């Protein structure tokens, strides 16, 4: 065995030990977490550890399978390296053999290469002639294609040409000329032709999808040209924009009554749907709870949230969409006949009979089934909890009550937040005059 072999062998052993330690630590952590949870359910420490082991299954088998999967990958890589080395050796040997065969065969090979080159030139000439024909055809069609130029208010529909990747994007071009898309964030599209949009999107998506051919459909802002049919609740889509108000461009401070959407640019984490900024200037966000946002600009908020979410999700680029009902510019003021159910007050607003409450698990693991109405006896029926007194309590006081009731039921001790909707007592309609004052 050479020194090189010995070093390689020692390196392999060290790598295998590191993998084994990692697997062992992960499985041990699982058993500790499970035992901790069982102790929380009232089991004695020793019984909890025993039960955790039982529920885990065959620890030795799991350990072996994990090591097999992890080390299998390393061994495959090593085998690949061996194969690559063998191929290189074979190529060197072949080259040496060809050199040895001498002049006659070399001349023959040269003649064959010359013939192949001439054939390739003829093929290239034919292809060039065909390309000229195609470009003439494209030139004839070009004026019709170039007539479609993206403008603010248009909707861009994005599709994978081969329908392999589910892009399913329909995004509204905002006042600053940009659209917000999953994975790639804000993309400037205004003033571009459809082909230029496709090119720009293909470049933007290139780091995420291999060999993706992007098709874009530009739906013009005229109502009759907008896509029919239900749109998904995708950020910036026209149906949602209409219900939430005008999308406001960056640089505009957030005010009470605005609605904001927080989006993970990579689309990996659900950061919740659109939320109205409440009377305290705060908005309810997953993981963070009620967060002050009034006075911040859209992109300032995005930067702050990227930092705030770091402990939960690591490096998570966050984008923000800002909607304003009946904007000061008055460009899209909802009709006074449209009833808008209003988010009521702030942390200290007292719940009354007829209001509705929406309870949300801050970690978004428990489902409380949407809004629940406060019954005439002042109670509200919630999943996991049953009937609980709500009327007479302040909003956040009620949230604490629910959190306290959940603590003994769930290992993870969930924390809940509450949104309060006043429906029976006061139904407000939004108008451009009213929106600035609340």
């Amino acid at each position: 065995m050479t020194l090189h072999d010995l070093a390689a062998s020692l390196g392999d052993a060290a790598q295998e030990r590191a993998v084994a330690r990692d697997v062992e630590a992960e499985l041990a952590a699982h058993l500790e977490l499970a035992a901790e949870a069982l102790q929380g359910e009232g089991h004695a420490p020793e019984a909890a550890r025993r039960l955790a082991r039982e529920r885990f299954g065959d620890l030795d088998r799991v350990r072996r399978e994990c090591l097999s999967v992890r080390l299998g990958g390393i061994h495959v890589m090593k085998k690949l390296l061996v194969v690559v080395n063998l191929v290189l050796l074979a190529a060197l040997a072949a080259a040496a053999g060809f050199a040895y065969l001498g002049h006659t065969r070399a001349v023959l090979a040269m003649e064959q290469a010359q013939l192949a080159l001439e054939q390739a030139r003829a093929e290239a000439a034919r292809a060039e002639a065909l390309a000229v024909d195609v470009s003439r055809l494209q030139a004839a069609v070009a004026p019709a294609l170039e007539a479609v130029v993206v403008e603010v208010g248009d909707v861009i529909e994005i599709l994978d040409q081969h329908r392999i990747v589910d892009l399913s994007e329909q995004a509204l071009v905002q006042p600053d000329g940009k659209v917000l898309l999953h994975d790639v964030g804000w993309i400037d599209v205004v003033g571009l032709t459809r082909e230029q949009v496709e090119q720009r999107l293909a470049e933007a998506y290139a780091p995420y999808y291999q060999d993706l051919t992007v098709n874009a459909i530009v739906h013009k802002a005229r109502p009759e040209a907008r896509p029919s049919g239900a749109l998904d609740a995708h950020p910036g889509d026209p149906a949602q924009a209409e219900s939430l108000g005008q999308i406001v461009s960056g640089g505009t401070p957030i005010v009470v009554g605005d609605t904001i959407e927080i989006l993970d640019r990579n689309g990996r984490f659900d950061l919740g749907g659109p939320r109205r900024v409440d009377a305290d200037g705060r908005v309810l966000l997953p993981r963070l709870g009620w967060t002050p946002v009034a006075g911040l600009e859209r992109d300032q908020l995005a930067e702050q949230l990227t930092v705030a979410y770091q402990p939960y999700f690591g490096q998570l680029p966050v984008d923000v969409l800002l909607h304003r009902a009946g904007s000061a510019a008055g460009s899209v003021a909802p009709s006074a006949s449209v009833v808008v159910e209003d988010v009521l007050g702030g942390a200290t607003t007292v719940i009354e009979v007829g209001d509705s409450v929406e309870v949300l698990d801050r970690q978004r693991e428990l489902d409380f089934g949407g809004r629940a109405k406060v019954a005439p006896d002042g109670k509200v029926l919630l999943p996991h909890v049953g009937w609980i007194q709500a009327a007479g309590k302040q909003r956040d006081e009620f949230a604490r009550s629910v959190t306290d009731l959940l603590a003994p039921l769930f290992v993870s001790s969930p924390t809940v937040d509450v949104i309060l909707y006043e429906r029976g007592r006061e139904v407000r309609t939004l108008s451009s005059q009213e929106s600035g004052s609340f």
Partner: protein
Amino acid sequence: MAAPDDKPRITLPQGALELLVLRTLARGARHGYAIAQAVKRSSREALELEEGSLYPALHRMERRGWVASQWGLTDTGRRAKFYALTPEGKKRLAAERRAWERMTAAVGLVLRGRAAGGQSA
């Protein structure tokens, strides 16, 4: 009356475990124990995974590039390995989900067809 522990276990068909894990991770990064608990809760206790079986599956998915892992701290301050969905995993989830829906719809058609055949015979 059957005790809670007596309720029949559902055996997961081939590939279902990976689909469940991908779907659970689509809601946020989690460690293995939290994944098992989330599946149990989401299925209203009907699906109780053999917890150990999760880990070889998670490591396979990591090798395939569907999930990425990182050591971190739990809410109670314990070290645990957290898994998160990668963009590749997100695509895989969409594809697996569509395949699963097609498969269950097809099985449903066959079952309904057999019942109808029985009545007409």
